[in-house]
């Protein structure tokens, strides 16, 4: 079979992904996660009588717990393949990348598997966050004090 024919057939049967619907789904799911975060902050403020800053720390820990648990139970990957950035950009994506890396490399042992590979995907976030925060913080000190 000629290459062109083959490519045409592949194009015909490839799953059609509309970029518009992807973006709309990401918008709705991401927005719902944001609303959930705000609701959790209000809930913790009301329930434990803590300040808003402490409540947002609790909220982040809760979302990380939910993300890790859903990844470990195995159905977070399906949700991610449906919502894409709607779940990868919130802090749940950070928990998802760490837990899935730890689960994937578990069979290679506790130290060389989980220990060495846990930050394989999430490491970029921490490294570029620290480097940029150091860089911008130094600039801020030089400019404004």
């Amino acid at each position, binding site marked *: 079979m000629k290459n062109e024919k083959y490519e045409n057939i592949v194009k015909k049967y490839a799953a059609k992904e509309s970029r518009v619907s992807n973006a709309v789904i990401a918008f709705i799911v991401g927005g719902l996660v*944001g*609303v959930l975060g705000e609701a959790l902050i209000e809930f913790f403020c009301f329930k434990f009588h803590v300040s808003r800053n402490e409540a947002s720390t609790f909220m982040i820990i809760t979302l990380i*717990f939910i993300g890790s648990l859903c990844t*470990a139970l195995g159905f977070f990957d399906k949700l991610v393949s449906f919502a894409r950035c709607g779940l990868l*950009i919130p*802090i749940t994506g950070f928990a998802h990348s760490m837990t899935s890396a730890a689960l994937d490399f578990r069979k290679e042992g506790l130290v060389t598997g989980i220990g060495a590979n846990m930050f394989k995907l999430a490491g*970029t976030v921490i490294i570029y966050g620290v480097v940029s925060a150091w860089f911008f913080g130094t600039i801020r000190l030089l400019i404004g004090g």
Partner: protein
Amino acid sequence: MIFINSFLFAGAICCISQIILDNTKLTPGHITSILVVLGSFLDIFNIYDKIVEVVGGGAMVPITSFGHLLIHGALAKASSMGPLGIVMGMFDLTASGITAAIIFSFVFAVIFKPKN
């Protein structure tokens, strides 16, 4: 009102990232790195703080808040300790999130077996 703001802000960030992901060759790793750098950039002159005041939880949920918290802790420490404070206070505010993520990941990886 703050719930609507949360929805719009978190949704807008996710929507923009999805558009970037679909139309370029960048991976999700690239996009989260860019967003973290953007979050810490916006906090040089406390712009992100004002966003958090208006938007509330919706601004704390996306990964941009991670960069914001990093530089926020560093600058808070730097105001009392000088340039060395940036190094000392870097993880002051994000320590809880990173520690929780490590502990939950480790415990779940030991308890559960991968499904695939």
